[in-house]
């Protein structure tokens, strides 16, 4: 190599890696598809040994009802149709949909039973989840602050109800960098309930980078068209030709770099090479035809349907295998204001087996140990009925942030356990409440990060995913 060029590149490396080593601005380098960070002697920012290397978040937009799925309240039967006591409700704010209306206690119409050796009680609607009960830590004392979907989802994923902050995956991309050669660090996939019973929108900021550099944002893997936007060459340019053309481009850019000395050009050359690699790696990843039948069966019958939650679960496993750091599945539905009896079963059928299948598949591959899987929504649903108590077909439940359930598995979580308790109506947390910021702190902890130390300075302030709150929920750690 030409000595000046060599020198330039040397500077480039020192320049960038130097910048990196100064602060966690470092991971600005650990760009989307960059080389393994550790291999470049970047410190990363692990504060202690991580239990998990990656996260698969199975986010259930619309808020699944904890009372019909996870939080067994047999005592509620005897209060059926009576007013929820004010001593329980405590004048907390409700949405405009149920504000000032009757609040009649509505016990679940479904049966619960103990599953697994741990004997964890769950609903008959989620038998597959039951079959992995011994892997799960079921948290029954989650609580949040927002009472409407978008703010609550935004709060859970970014730590703030208002859009504008980085989402959890972006924080991890920024903090830990990439762990693979040719796929993004943070991927997002979406699916929706089969019968389109709810209208929740998937906002980009759910996987956005907020004020972090934009390459930390989640790359959306799409359910139709190109799996990643603009991935395919235009018609009439095949891969071989593209390669040859890009080689010429690279030479043109090298000439330019030699002339002007701007190290950013070298980065651009690399990014074009990575783009080319991605054009192969992404379709390969999305191609599930190589999966054996017994694996497909784990995820249930929808797995062959592109864009389904089931197929997204399978893709999540494939991404996890490739070292993608944060995989965010979002499944919209669950918003059963007046169609609980008809819709809940439909939606558990869509999600129960694929989610359980994913955990089993990870386990059989030895990936569960260092993959944290989380299943849950932005809040729960009210123990009282929304709408007419006497019209059973239209029973429903309103939004409920004061207590709800979610489960975690793998990656340093104590399996076969439950954590926290709600009151006898499942209305308020009775014991060991886990605030959304506590959940966030715990997730970061499992990945080896002190949530108080993962900060980014913006508008004069050091921002954190957990704002100024959050404590790690130690009892659920393995």
């Amino acid at each position, binding site marked *: 190599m030409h000595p000046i060029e060599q020198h330039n590149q040397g500077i480039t490396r020192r320049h960038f890696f130097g910048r990196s080593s100064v602060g966690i601005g470092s991971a600005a380098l650990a760009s989307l598809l960059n080389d393994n960070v550790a291999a470049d002697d970047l410190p990363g920012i692990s504060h202690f040994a991580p239990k998990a290397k990656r996260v698969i978040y199975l986010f259930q937009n619309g808020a699944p009802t904890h009372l019909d799925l996870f939080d067994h309240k047999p005592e509620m039967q005897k209060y059926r149709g009576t007013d929820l006591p004010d001593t329980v409700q405590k004048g907390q704010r409700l949405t405009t949909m149920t504000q000032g209306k009757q609040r009649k206690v509505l016990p679940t119409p479904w049966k619960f039973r103990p599953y697994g050796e741990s004997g964890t009680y769950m609903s008959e609607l989620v038998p597959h989840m039951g079959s992995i009960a011994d892997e799960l830590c079921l948290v029954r004392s989650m609580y949040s602050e927002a009472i409407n979907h978008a703010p609550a989802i935004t709060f859970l994923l970014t730590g703030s109800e208002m859009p504008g902050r980085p989402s959890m995956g972006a924080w991890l991309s920024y903090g830990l960098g990439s762990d693979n050669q040719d796929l993004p660090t943070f991927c997002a996939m979406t699916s929706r309930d089969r019968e389109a019973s709810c209208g929740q929108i998937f906002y980009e900021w759910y996987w956005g980078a907020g004020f972090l550099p934009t390459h930390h944002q989640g790359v959306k893997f799409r359910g139709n068209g190109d799996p990643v936007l603009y991935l395919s060459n*235009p018609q009439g340019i095949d891969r071989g030709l593209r390669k040859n053309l890009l080689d010429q481009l690279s030479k043109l850019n090298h000439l330019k770099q030699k002339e002007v000395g701007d190290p950013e050009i070298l980065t651009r050359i690399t*990014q*074009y090479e990575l783009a080319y690699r991605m054009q192969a790696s992404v379709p390969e990843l999305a191609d599930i035809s190589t999966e054996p039948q017994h694996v497909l069966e784990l995820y249930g019958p929808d797995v062959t349907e592109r864009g389904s939650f089931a197929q997204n679960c399978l893709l999540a496993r494939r991404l996890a295998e490739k070292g993608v750091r944060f995989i965010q599945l979002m499944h919209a539905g669950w918003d059963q204001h007046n169609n609980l009896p008809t819709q809940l079963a439909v939606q558990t059928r869509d999600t129960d087996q694929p989610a359980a299948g994913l955990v089993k598949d990870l386990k059989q591959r030895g990936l569960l140990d260092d993959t944290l899987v989380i299943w849950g929504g932005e809040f729960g649903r009210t123990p009282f009925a929304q709408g007419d108590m006497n019209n059973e077909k239209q029973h429903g439940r309103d939004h409920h942030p004061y207590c709800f359930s979610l489960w975690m598995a793998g990656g340093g979580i104590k399996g076969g356990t439950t954590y926290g308790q709600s009151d006898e109506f499942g209305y308020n947390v009775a014991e060991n409440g886990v605030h959304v910021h506590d959940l966030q702190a715990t997730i970061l902890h499992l990945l080896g990060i002190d949530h108080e130390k993962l900060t980014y300075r913006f508008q004069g302030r050091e921002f954190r995913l957990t704002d100024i709150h959050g404590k790690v929920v130690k009892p659920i750690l393995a």
Partner: protein
Amino acid sequence: MSSYRSGLFLTAMLLLPSVELRAQKIDFNQDIRPILSNNCFLCHGPDEGNREADLRLDTEAGIAELRDPPLIVKGDASQGEFMHRITTNDMDLKMPPADSNLQLTSQQIATLKRWIEQGAEYSVHWAFSPPTKPALPPTKNKSWARNPLDHFILARLEQDNLQPSAQADRRTLIRRLTFDLTGLPPTPDEVEAFLEDTSDDAYEKVIKRLLESSRYGEHMAWAWLVAARYSDTNGYQGDRTRSSYFWRTWVIEAFNSNMPYDQFTIEQIAGDLLVQPNTSQLIATGFNRNHPLNGEGGRIAEENRVEYVFDRTETTSTVWLGLTMACARCHDHKYDPITQREYYELYAYFNSIDETGRVDAGGNAKPVIKVPTLAQRARAEEITQAIQQYNVARSQSLDELRDAREQWISKWTAILNDEQSSSFWTKVVPEKAESAEGATIQVEPRGKVAVSGKFPDFDDYTLSIPVAPGTIEAIRLEALTNDTQYRGPGRNANFVLTSFEVALQTEGAEPTGVKIHEARADFVQGGFQIAEVLQSDSKNGWAVWDGELKTAIDRQAIFLLEQPLVVAENSNLIVTLKHRSEHAKHLLGTFALSVSGSREVNFGTDTVPPADVVKILQTDIDQWKPEQELVVAEFHRTTTEQYKSATADLQLILSEQDRLKEGFQETMIMRDLANARETRMLGVGRYDNPLNDEKLSPGTIAGISAMPEDAPKNRLGLAQWIVSPDNPLTSRVTVNRFWQQFFGTGLVKTTEDFGSQGEVPSHPQLLDWLAVDFQDNHWNVKRLVYQLVTSATYKQSSKVSPELLEKDPYNRLLGRAPRHRLAAHTIRDNALAVSGLLVEQLGGPSVKPYQPPGLWADFSFGKIKYTQDSGDALYRRSLYTFWRRSLSPPNMFDEANRQTCEVRSKRTNTPLHALTLLNDITFVEAARVFAEQLIQENKLDSERFISAFEKALSRPPTEEELKLMNNIVTMSRQHYQDKPEEAAELLQVGESKPSEDIPAVELAAFTNLANIIFNTDEFISKE
């Protein structure tokens, strides 16, 4: 090492490239405040609620406070609690405490020590003390500086023993300048002209040309749109479309007309509160309506409304003051002297908008006004002028008309004295007029009948009209234009008269029907013949629409009676006008009836003047009183051809004006309630959680500057405070943002934060010099821009030597021009312009160019679908691309998301960008169209290669580059000769049709060449 993670170390490294090289004298603002702010203010700063140990380190009094033990002993760093606590090893005493995750570096401790040794001088935070214009610093190099700002840049470089770079070559200069001032590349002709222009002011001439181009405003508008969180939709669930583009056009025009920045500020913050604001000033207030609107079900409207007020408060603060106000929503600011109370006082200015928190005006939210599109506005201006002209024509001076009037008087005096002459119309005045459906009918003294009030679908009018004894042979109905919307003659422009019936009633007797022999009209609408009105039960009738919305014309119908009608004393004509067609609301609005004793009458037959005028005419002209003379003169004027023709024209144009205004669209503006809402401090910013009962008045921040004494206590006062000469922030913040736009990074890097957590300026004196100069020159933006781009600093080459790169990697000292990637929207415009596809059309609604299918449907569950435009709309500048707040245009990478105000742009470098530029239809189509040009305009490959570079990169290629281009074309030709079907496929990309004169293989090969050129670093970079 946790200190590695402290942001401050990074800051110090980047911003103060070498503290050691700086003067030995410690400067509180440059050196000390950042350390204290980052490490101490959280607990010992402005926030009274969380202040520890009652110690305050952000004020002079706090630092100088007498404490026991003493805090700081000026001049002696070996004493004092301050130094003790930051240097002790006792973890219980150590500051900052371990659990704060903060730690001072040894370098910082040394700096603090030196500060104390030098006397621990305090000064007010630099940004809060008013700027003064400093003298130009001396420099060793006396020949480099071109204008004052260069002196500051050079002096700072020399301080570090650095030299500025050589001037960039002329091709680079014109290219840089054209991108910076218009967002588009220069054409090869423009480059050539500049190269050939050897005059001393060749460069300045280019600047002037570019500043006068309307592209300038389009380009400058982008950053302002981003700061203003402009979007075409509301965001949140539903994400409905709003019509804010009027405001966008306002911004473009404001930049193009070089509106002074203080006026630009006042009109946007408070245009509605100016004296008799015009439409443009009202549109300007759309600035603070650009925030998201939440239409989600279950949301509490008041909670939304409060969010909007927060947004306005914080956006206004960031954009004009460079303050991070949001912190003070919930508590006193931790770093800057802004109390929570002051936050809500500022909030109070924005808290009384006449709004509900709902999306209650289509996709907009009230308050709104109807405003014209650009084309409508142009026509409206023409109409206003025409109306003035017609009104002038209609008010010809009575003196001028004297001769004509005298003739007219003699004519009518003669006629009125001649008993025989009867071939005239005589207007009749109904004494009773009724509507079958209860509409109101009024009869004017001279007989004009006007219908108003209730507006039924169908109606019959019955008129009872006293008539003088004699004979009637003909009756005339005049359908008259009027002052209602569309100006008549129908109540809703057109009418369908289905029946015209006449009867005669002589005192006491039953009315007897009068048969009509014939009906004529001076105008009939096709298929609506006048004869129909003689069929009493007909659904058909007479109508007057001319097919072009020109209905506002007086029309006549004449009815000849079968027999001469002999009228006795005390008789009334009973006339019935029926409107019973199939066309609802087609009713006569204003009309008049006349009779004649002759059958020889026609549409042009004279009408006898009205009774009151006749009465005067019949008296001796010498006896007329002045008021009688005036009555006659004024009436006469209405009979002149000039008056009649101007009136007819006026009515038509007023009617057009009515329709034009009806076509105006609503856009959101600011408007205050008559009675201000009460403002209270809100606990943790919760809308329903007032901290106490105290009602706050609007107010500004005391720590910045005082309110001008005569300023009103409303948003207008706020705007005046923002641009008052005493405000230390606005001017600095503004010149800094423009600096950032042209030099890549602001003099204060944290464009959004001029508070104590923001970075200190790299060139504080330069910033102040520019800030004062800008104000002294009436906030003249084009002048400021001219200053920036004529500086030697700006004209430097952007090439960087390894030495310079190492010494100043981020180019904060500006020893070279910045070199960086163009914004995504500029790259798209660049490709469109170079290919010749760009369609330039200023302003108007947003357009929907190419985007991968299904994106909107995917995110919205199919509820919102993208309907791509076609034709010209595909090739408009990116500024006009429809911006969905929830899902920004997919090819605009790194662009702000328009959720909240952003004043600093992001510039990353990822493979996703590469994929976009390689594969997006926009770029592939542009490449093909560019290739067509290259092939058609040049014969030889080598000529085509040269042309390609000159058009796309403003320079000829080098030998090596020619070789690489040849490689691309050769390999592509070979490939497509083997696979011609692939060539054909490639050419199909995009909506425009490929040229059929060029062989597909050839065109495809050059399309690949163009595609690669569009992906070179040089094409997408500002150099």
